[in-house]
C-alpha cells in the first residue's frame, strides 16, 4: 500500500442572480416612534444570513447604528414581493432594494432633522452612531431618536422608504444564444492537496488553499461561513454523494444518512482562504453572493488532484474508491504525475 500525494487546481466564475433577470425584489423601511428602523421584507433566511446582511445594508444606507435596525421578513401579509432566496440573488437583488428604501427613508430623516435644526437638509450628515449634525459642525446636532419623535408627533411626517430592484428580463436568441445574462460575476481559484491510497482507492483531502473574489465581504464572518461550508460541500459532492449510485440505473438509492455518504467532522479539511474584493458596479456596496459558487471549484480540483496523484482520470462523479481502483487496474498501477512544471525538478 502506498499513499500517493496529489495536487489539483481549478478556477471558476459564477453568475449572480436569476440568469436572465425579470426577478424583482421589494423592501420597505419605516421608523418607529423612538427612532429605530424596521426593514420589512419577504426574503427567506436559509441560514445564509439574509436577515443579518439586509440589516447591515439598511444601517449603512440609513447612516445609523446596526443596533437600531431590525429586519422583519417572510410574512406575505406584511412583506412586499420578493422572488426568493435562490440563484445567489438574495444579497444582490434584495440588498439593492433595501438600499433604495433606506435611502428614501434617510432623505426624509434628514429633512425632519433639518426642520428641527433650522438648517438646509443638504448640509446634514449622519455619524453612524445615532446622531445627525451639520457637516463640519458636530455641535449642531440632533439624535436620530429625537428626529423620529419630532417627525412623528410634531411635524406629522413619516420616515419611511420604498425600494425595488429589478433587472429587466432578457431574451435568448434561438440561433446564436445571444443574451444579457447576469451582470455580476464572482470568481474563485482553488488548490487541493490530497492523498490516494493505491490499495483501497480511498482519497483523503489534506489541505485546501483558495482565493475567492466576492466583490465585497459585506459581513466577513458570514462570508467565511459560506466559503468553509461550501468547500466542505464541494468535497462531499466530489468524493461521496449521490442519490443514484448506479446512475442512470435507479437501484440502491440511499434513503437515509447511513447510506447517503457525506464526510463527517473527522473529514473537515484545513482550508486557507484569501478573499479578494473587486466591487461589482451594480451590486450593493459591490458585494456579490458567495453562496453558490464556493463549492464549484472544489469538484474539478479534486479530480485533477486525483489524476496528479495516481494518473487516473475520474470524469464521472462521485470519485469513489471503486472508480479509482478500476482506473489503477486499467493503467497497471499508480502513475504519479509529479510536481508542477515550474517547480525545480518538476515533471518533464
Amino acid at each position, binding site marked *: 500500500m502506498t499513499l500517493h500525494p496529489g495536487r489539483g*487546481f*481549478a*478556477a471558476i*466564475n*459564477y453568475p449572480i442572480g436569476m440568469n*436572465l433577470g425579470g426577478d424583482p425584489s421589494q423592501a420597505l423601511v419605516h421608523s418607529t416612534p423612538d427612532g429605530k428602523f424596521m426593514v420589512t421584507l419577504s426574503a*427567506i*433566511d*436559509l*441560514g445564509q444570513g439574509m*436577515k443579518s446582511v439586509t440589516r447591515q445594508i439598511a444601517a449603512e*444606507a440609513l447612516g445609523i447604528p*446596526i443596533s437600531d435596525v431590525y*429586519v422583519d421578513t*417572510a410574512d406575505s401579509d406584511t*412583506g412586499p414581493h420578493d422572488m*426568493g432566496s*435562490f440563484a445567489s440573488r438574495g444579497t444582490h437583488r434584495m440588498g439593492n432594494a433595501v438600499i433604495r428604501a433606506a435611502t428614501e427613508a434617510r432623505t426624509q430623516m434628514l429633512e425632519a432633522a433639518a426642520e428641527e435644526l433650522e438648517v438646509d437638509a443638504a448640509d446634514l450628515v449622519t455619524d*453612524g452612531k445615532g446622531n445627525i449634525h451639520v457637516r463640519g459642525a458636530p455641535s449642531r446636532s440632533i439624535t436620530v431618536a429625537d428626529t423620529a419623535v419630532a417627525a412623528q408627533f410634531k411635524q406629522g411626517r413619516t420616515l419611511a422608504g420604498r425600494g425595488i430592484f*429589478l433587472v429587466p428580463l432578457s431574451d435568448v436568441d*434561438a*440561433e*446564436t*444564444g*445571444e*443574451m*444579457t*445574462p447576469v*451582470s455580476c*460575476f464572482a*470568481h474563485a*481559484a482553488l*488548490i487541493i492537496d490530497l492523498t490516494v491510497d493505491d490499495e483501497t482507492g480511498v482519497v483523503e483531502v489534506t489541505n485546501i488553499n*483558495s482565493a475567492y473574489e466576492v466583490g*465585497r465581504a459585506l459581513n*466577513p*464572518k*458570514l462570508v*467565511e461561513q459560506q466559503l468553509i461550508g*461550501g468547500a466542505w460541500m464541494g468535497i462531499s*459532492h466530489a468524493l461521496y454523494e449521490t*442519490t*443514484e449510485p448506479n*446512475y*442512470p440505473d*435507479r437501484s440502491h438509492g440511499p434513503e437515509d444518512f447511513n447510506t447517503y455518504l*457525506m464526510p463527517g467532522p473527522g473529514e473537515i479539511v484545513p482550508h486557507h482562504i*484569501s*478573499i479578494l474584493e*473587486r466591487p461589482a458596479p451594480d451590486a450593493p*456596496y*459591490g458585494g456579490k453572493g458567495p453562496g453558490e*459558487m464556493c463549492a464549484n471549484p472544489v469538484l*474539478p*480540483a479534486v479530480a*485533477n488532484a486525483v489524476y496528479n496523484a495516481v494518473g487516473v482520470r475520474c*470524469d*464521472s462523479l*462521485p470519485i469513489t474508491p471503486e472508480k479509482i481502483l478500476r482506473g489503477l487496474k486499467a493503467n497497471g498501477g499508480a502513475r504519479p504525475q509529479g510536481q508542477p512544471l*515550474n517547480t525545480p525538478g518538476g515533471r518533464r
Partner: protein
Amino acid sequence: MAVEFRKDLFADERDDDLNEIGQPIIRQDILGHVTGRSPFYDDHLYDGLLFMRCVRSPHHHARIRSVDAAAAERMPGVIRLIRPQDVPVNLNTLLSLISFGRDDEPLLAEHRVAYKGEPVMAIIATSDRAALDAVARVRVDYEELPHVLDVEDALKPEAPVVNETYPNNTFDYHDRYDHQKLRFGDVEAAFAQADHIVEGEYQMSPIEQAPIETCGAIAAPETNDRYVCHTSTQALFFSLGTTAKLLDMPSSRLHFIGGTVGGGFGGKVDSHHEPMAVLGAMLTGKPVKYMWDRAEEMQVGAPRGGERWRLKDGVMRDGRIIARAFTGFFDAGAYTRLSSYAVQKATGHLPGPYMIPNVASNVYCVYTNRTPSTAMRGFGITAVDFAIECHMDKAAETVGMDPIELRILNAYRDGDMKAHRRAAKNCALIESCQVVAQKSGWPLSAEAMAQSSLFGGGIGERGVIPETVTDQAGQIGERKRSGLAPEPFAGATARGHVPAGTATDHPATGNAPQREDMEIEAERLGFKVTRGASAPGQTPASPMPQPQPAATVAPAAPRPGAGPAMPPAYTAPAPASQQPVAPPASTRPQPTPPTPPAAPAPAPAAEPYKPEQPFQRGVKRPGVSRFISGSRRR
C-alpha cells in the same frame, strides 16, 4: 482554518470607509437558533393538527388502470382522501410564473405515472402513523409501460414518451429547436487550424440537497375565508403564486409565513407541499401538515439532476484555446421544474471564464423516467464547471504547459467579448489564480504573475463579435424521426452567417426599469469611481511582458469571412508613448510578484458579544422538551 483579506488588490475601486458594511456583526437570529427557540414551519403545532401522506408509484412508468381506496378509507383515524380530481387545476409548471414553458406536471398523477415515487393520492389522518397505515392499504392497478432512464437513450427514435406535453423527450426552445444553441465564431474552421484537439466527456450524478429540515408545510383555515401556510419554502411568493394557480384561488386568500429555514440549497423552491397542505386544509377545514420524511426527501424530493457534458477543444501549441464546442444534457427527470431554465443559464456561462474566440454548444433539457430534478447550489453551472476545469487540465497536459498558466493565458479580462455577445467587466479570474498559486507555493512564471484582469482585454479581436456560422439542425421532432447526433452542427445541411459586430451594438446591461424617484446616493455606496481603468483597452504604464516567442500573433482587425478568429497569446500593450500622462500608481497592474498579504482580516471585535438584556427564554425548564418551541392555538 485561516482567512485573509487581500485588501491590497482592487483597493482603488473600493471605498473601505464604511460603518456597518464589512463588519463581522453577529447574526440577528443566532441566539434563537443556538438555544433552539427559533420557530421553523414544523413548530406551528396547531391543536387538532392533521397529517398528510401520499400513495406513490412503485414503477418508473405505468398506466393507472384503477385505484381502490375503500379499505384505506375505513382505516381508523382517516379523515379524507385527496384524489387527482380534487385538485382544482391539476397541471402546472413552476416557471409559468415567468411565462416560461408549458404546464406539464400534475400535483397528483391521474392516468399515468412517469417516475418511481410519483404521488397518485394523498391521505389525511389524525396521526402520521394512521396516514401511513392507510397509504399501505390503497390498491393501485398499474399497467407497466416501457421506461427510459438515460438522457441519450431518451433522444433515440424508439424511446418511450416520458412527458406527454413534450413528446420528443426534450424541452422545446423558441418553438423551433429541441435544444438551446450557442454559436460564436466558426468552431469547425478553428478546429481545422488547431494544433491539437482535446476531447472529453464528464458526468455529474444526481445528488441530494440534504437539508437538515425536510421540505414541508402546515396550512390552516384563517378567518375571512383565507388560509395561512407555514412553509419551508426558499421563495415565499413563488410558492404562494404556485398554490394560487393549482388551487384556482385569488392569491389574496393565501397568507404565507416562512423565513427561517433549516437549510435549502435549492431543494425548497419546488412548491409541492404548500398547495398540498392548503388543499388539505380547504377540504377538511382543519390544520394539515404535509412533510417529507428522510426517505422521501432523498428519493422523491427533486435532487440536483444528472448532467452529461462533452467538450471538444482546439488548442494551439502555445496553450491558446482557439475553439471550444459543448454538447450538454440536463437530466430533468419526468417533468420540467426548473431544468429548462438551467439550460439557458449554462449556455450563458459558456465557455467558462475564458476568452475563446470560437464557441458552439447544443444543450438539451431531456425528460427521463426518474424523479424530477431541480435547483441546487450552483444550478446550471456546477457540472459544466467540473467539465471545463477537468478539461483545462487535459489541455495543459496536451501542450505540456502548467495548468494555472494555461488558465491565466486564456483568462477573460475586462472588455473581452463573451460568447453570449456582451463585453466582460469586473473580471478577477487572473488575480484569483495568482493569489492562490502564490500562497500555495505553486510557482508561476514572472510573466504569468504580471498579467491582470484590468489590462489587455477588449483589444483588437478580443473586443468584437466575430462573424458567426449558424445552422438549423435539431428542429423540434427532427431527432425523433432521423436519429440525429446531438453535437453542434451535426446533421446540418446548410450554414448561415451572422455578420461580425462590436460590443457597442449591445449594451452590457439594460437600464434597470426602477422609477427615477427610487434613487440611490452613489457616493455613499462604497465605490471609488474616479478611475477609468476598467475601460476596455486601457493599458498599464509599465510595459507588459512580450508575447511568448512561440506565439503567433494574429492580425488585430476583424477579418469577416476570413476564417476563425485567433487571439494572440498574452495581449501586447499599446506602446507606452500613447499614454500622454502616466496614470497614477494605483492603476498599475498587480506587482510582480504581488505584494505580500496586507494587514490580516479586520479582527472581530475584541470584546465578545453580549446581549443587551440577559437572555431569559430558551433555558431548560423542568418537564419541557428543549426542542418543542411551537406556538399552540386552536
